[in-house]
């Protein structure tokens, strides 16, 4: 069994994405033998009212039985936009979404904004995971209308310190993994799941040995990235680096446990 914890539908306004819809993602899932994908609507990064993106995603998944069986939608919530608490409740209670994603740098608030902290506490209280994305695209090739600065892993740690008992997904580790000792301890002690898509996982065995085998799961970051690289990090492990049980954790075990599937 395989679970992808980091995939998208929707558009990136500065570049054409291919297969950026449920059908395109499902084709790749079949090709690679992936059973289930956590999916988020990229449009929500850019819509001021992110709930419209969540509704689009909900509708797209409901449009075909196969989608309902294969996708686990996560909402994008902007906690400084009117109605965000209602949006959260709708997505969690009515749409059955098991997670949310927040984009503080794109939505222009700080990582310790009181509204974000309140949202994460709500997620914790509703047993909903919180996805934090280190990077969507490389700023070196950004559009002139895109953000010029990126947040590293360390920039997200203050939120984990504010709400230490929430469940966090840290996705696309592409902006530097260097951490002060105290921040590293915070991450190691938190209920955190990293995905395998990020470019800073240059040697996967070293990285999971640093943070713990239970903290990693396959993620593709597709259709922004190719579909295979995140999986190759797992499948190219040597036997002495990870036995079959370890690989099963990365393929689905950690995701199942973390997402309570």
């Amino acid at each position, binding site marked *: 069994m395989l679970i992808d914890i980091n995939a998208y539908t929707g558009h990136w306004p500065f570049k054409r994405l291919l297969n950026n819809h449920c059908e395109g993602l499902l084709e790749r899932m079949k090709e690679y033998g992936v059973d289930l994908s956590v999916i988020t609507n990229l449009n929500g990064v850019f819509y001021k009212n992110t709930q419209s993106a969540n509704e689009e995603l909900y509708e797209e998944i409901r449009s075909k039985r196969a989608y309902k*069986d294969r996708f686990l939608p996560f909402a994008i919530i902007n906690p400084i936009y009117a109605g965000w608490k209602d949006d959260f409740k709708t997505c969690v209670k009515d749409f*059955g979404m098991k997670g949310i994603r927040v984009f503080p740098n794109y939505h222009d608030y700080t990582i310790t904004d009181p509204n974000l902290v309140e949202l994460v506490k709500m997620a914790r209280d509703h047993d909903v995971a919180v996805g934090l994305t280190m990077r969507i695209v490389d700023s070196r090739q950004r559009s002139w209308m895109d953000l010029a600065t990126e947040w590293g892993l360390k920039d997200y740690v203050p939120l984990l310190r504010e709400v230490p008992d929430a469940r966090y997904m840290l996705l696309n580790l592409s902006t530097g993994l260097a951490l002060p000792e105290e921040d590293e301890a915070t991450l190691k002690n938190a209920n955190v799941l990293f995905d395998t898509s990020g470019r800073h*996982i240059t040697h996967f065995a070293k990285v999971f040995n640093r943070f713990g085998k239970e903290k990693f799961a396959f993620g593709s970051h597709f259709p922004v*990235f190719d579909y*295979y690289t995140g999986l*190759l990090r797992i499948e190219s492990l040597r036997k002495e680096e990870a036995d079959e049980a370890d690989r099963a954790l990365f*393929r689905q075990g950690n995701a199942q446990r973390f997402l309570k599937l």
Partner: protein
Amino acid sequence: MNRRNFVRNMATSASGIILGSSLLQETAAGMAPRPTPADRMKEVFSYRKLDAHVHVGLTNDGPELNVDYAERLGIDRMFISKPVTRGPAAPEDFRAANDFILKCMKRFPERLTGMLTLNPTYKRESLEEIKRCTGEGMWGVKVYYQVKINDPLFYPIIEKLIDLKMIILMHAETTLGIAGYRMKYDQKIKPQSSIPENFVDIAARYPEAMFQFAHIGGGPDWEYACKALRNSPNVYVDVSGSNNENNMVEFAVECLGADRVLYGSDNMYYQSVGKMIDARLTEEQKRKIFFDNYNNILKKGGYHVD
């Protein structure tokens, strides 16, 4: 769909799209046979590979790590280099870098071939270094951003490489703001970095030379780069670099043709293989990029990989 319909549809779908373990089990049980991870690794190993852009000595990792990944991912041979990335890149600097690469080659002759580096500001010493290093089995030249690729200082170097029928791999940028390109959006100015237009210029001046535009996955705007290089048939691009964006390799093939795209990792091993295996290309196109194109370039200079 309007809001009223949306709410009504939601209400009639009381179960929403809640997924859980029972559904997951159902999904797994109902699936047709599908490719296993082992099948996928067989596919990885089914392609012979020549890594046309990879380094040793720019980090604390030694050549053992290159060889580890070569074996892990089925890379037949890596063409390693150590460009001088700091300081003046004086003759003693590039000689020392080349000596280091020669040692790596001697340790792992079955996997590693060196590319020499130089600084065309030092014409005599650079030409001497080409003679010395190629005499010791190195092949091709890797250069950094001390001098732009179309600077007249490069002319005697390129003319020598035309004689030798060797390629010149130049670090390249297409990042907004780099090298005077769209200064409005500038982030880090490295004024001597080579940009696509510089390659177009020098490739037209020396149509018999072979140029390699470095790492379209290394941070440049690869759409811009490929479009700019479309009509420069003696410029190849390598797909190396840390970015493994969907459709990058396919776009390069669409713009340049499959014969002008080279496989390379720039030490980003997972991404380099992952984006190639996932690319929506034919097997023949992948074989060309992974191996044949670079081997054909090597053959021109009397070097090839069996």
